[in-house]
């Protein structure tokens, strides 16, 4: 199995430890992982703003870096969503459609592909609140949502339940978007910040020590809000916990 690691630009820049944890975690399960050094971004920021022409060269570079692997794995549901559901600024050749189908978000990959049974090294004796990004929830469908009736399931919770000592608490509006939304966070700053405040306050009333998510972008936004509000909780990416981070 040839696996390439995609570390999205903001994780590369702001959360390198998330990249490290993803790499180490995959290696713990015997996966040999390539990290193409020339990788940058998947094209999502431009494409999300409708700027297909501006996204094309970045998507082409992504293709160059990542084609030919059995799987591309990224610790970001948002970027995975872009690659799988959009990523059409370049001609949809066989190589592109294969790449899109083979790109996985890390929780999906652990849960559905590696079918991980246990994380013996992981212990996190804290009360955490899980934040599912909207990409994870409504696009990749890694968990059931309240808008649709049906059987309830959660891949991230299934993984976290294998971590020793970890307990979870549910906020009042578990599926509510936190308001990051990419460039929305800057161009629609008032609403974005308000949504973030509401989200971290909702977590605060459950008295969690940590907010955990598979998306660093949501975490960055929420952390910025929580710090400004003077709320004490901390923020951590799910792979860090699964890779054995203690705090």
């Amino acid at each position, binding site marked *: 199995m040839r696996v390439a690691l995609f*570390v999205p*630009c903001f994780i*590369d*820049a*702001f*959360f*390198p430890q*998330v*990249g*490290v944890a993803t*790499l180490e975690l995959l290696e713990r399960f015997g996966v040999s992982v*390539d990290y193409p*050094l020339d990788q*940058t*971004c998947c*094209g999502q*920021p*431009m494409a*999300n*703003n*409708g*700027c*297909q*022409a*501006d*996204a094309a060269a970045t998507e082409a*570079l992504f293709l160059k870096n990542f084609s030919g692997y059995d799987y591309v794995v990224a610790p970001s549901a948002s970027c995975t969503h872009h690659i799988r559901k*959009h990523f059409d600024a370049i001609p949809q050749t066989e190589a592109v459609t294969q790449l899109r189908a083979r790109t996985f978000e890390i929780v999906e990959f652990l849960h559905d592909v590696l079918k991980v049974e246990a994380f013996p090294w992981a212990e996190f004796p804290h009360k955490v609140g899980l934040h599912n990004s*909207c990409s994870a929830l*409504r*696009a990749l469908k890694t968990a059931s*949502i309240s*808008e*649709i*009736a*049906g059987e309830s399931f959660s891949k991230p919770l299934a993984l976290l339940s294998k971590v020793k000592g970890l307990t979870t608490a549910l906020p009042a*509006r578990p599926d*509510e*978007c936190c*308001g*990051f*939304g*990419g*460039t*929305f966070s*800057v*161009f*629609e700053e*008032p*609403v*974005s*910040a*308000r*949504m*973030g405040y509401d989200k971290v306050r909702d977590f605060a009333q459950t008295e969690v020590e940590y907010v955990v998510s598979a998306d660093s972008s949501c975490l*960055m936004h929420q*952390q*910025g*809000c929580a*710090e400004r509000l003077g709320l004490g909780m901390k923020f951590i990416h799910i792979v860090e916990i699964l890779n054995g981070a203690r705090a």
Partner: protein
Amino acid sequence: MSRVDHAGLSAKFLAAEANAEFHDRRLWDLRMKRDQQMAMIPEWQDLRDRASAIKEHTLSQLDRYLEEFEANATKNGATVHWARDAAEHNEIVHRLLSERGVRTLVKSKSMLTEECEMRPYLEARGIKVIETDLGERIQQLDDEPPSHIVIPAVHKLRGDVSKVFARTIGSEPGNDDIHYLAKSQRDDTRPYFLDAEAGMTGGNFIVAETGAVVTVTNEGNADLSANVPKLYIACVGIEKLVPRLADLAIFIRLLSRSAIGSPISQYTSHFRKARAGGEMHIVLVDNGRSARLGMADFWTSLKCIRCGACMNTCPVYRRSGGLSYRAVYAGPIGAIIDPTFDLKKFSALPFASTMNGSCTDVCPVKINIHEQIYAWRRVIAEQRQLPFVKREAMRIAGRIFSSPKLYRLALKLTRLANNGLPRFAIYTMLNPWGHHREVPAPPVETFNAWYRANRGGRR
């Protein structure tokens, strides 16, 4: 028309803290009630599939079903008029009223007449128009458009309503008891029902098979508007059609549950013909709908039954208020149909979304709302309607991200800037991010640098 400044208007909305908090909570409460209703109907998703299929089928043969409707309505004794656009609609209504010497028109809620800006048109021609829906009346008296398609005054606290009523219909100042306020409005409106020479309703549905106009309401004011005056006019968009009476049952089951989380509304009324000695006219309005039907990415927006569920669930709408869209239709459904009226003016609205997708999942007729929002962004960029700053930002981002060298360099510069610039500069002009949020401190090294240092030998 200049571009609507949704972000700026949201900031104003949020500044009124009590209203903002109430608005979000009230609409979220409706979303919760909707979820509870859904949970009681095991076949909910099946109903959505059927509703969607019926609407798509009908829209794909709209001409045929419209003619069937016209034939059956005419057989019933109603007169059917066709209006190509808002202007024709207003002219037809005005002609019907003025030919009969009508001076006062009572009407129930209709988004279509808002869309056609009918009220100011008629009032400028000496015809008094009285909105009889409580929320719509509040908005009329306050000289504001509706902020929600189902609950027009949802952004107002009862204290706000009390002030409007005290100022305009002489209710007791300071009395903000909900029952008192509702009664004041009823007492004020009732005489108009008796005086008015004409009544008007919109239509939630029209049924081809029966030629009926169907309204779904809770206050009974549509029934009064239609039945008390001698002349009854129903104004309906051509997309409101369903083929058969049996089809309607599916929509009735979905509508109130999706809209306000109640199993059914107080009144579901089928109007087929005028009362004895009266007249019934039906104005079928296109106003851009047939053009929308021809848009490959957007035609399914015509399936909309105007339930408002997408607005109730929308985290952006809940925190910016309907008036911040400066459009007849606010929220997610507004973001995908407003640009068909004026692309430039409404070009910010598809960007007033986090793309969370909740709207799509609650929509009872399965409109892929958030995907259409995404598609509009492309249209807006292609038509060069993005604000200059964003267009440039994306052009530069596209260049940086497509070159590993430029990307590494940009990261280095940003890190220097973040470390080197005084906090106030980051927090003020340079980056709106910092108005309400802390900026993350960049770590000592990027992942890429870590990898080169620690795993450099392997590729």
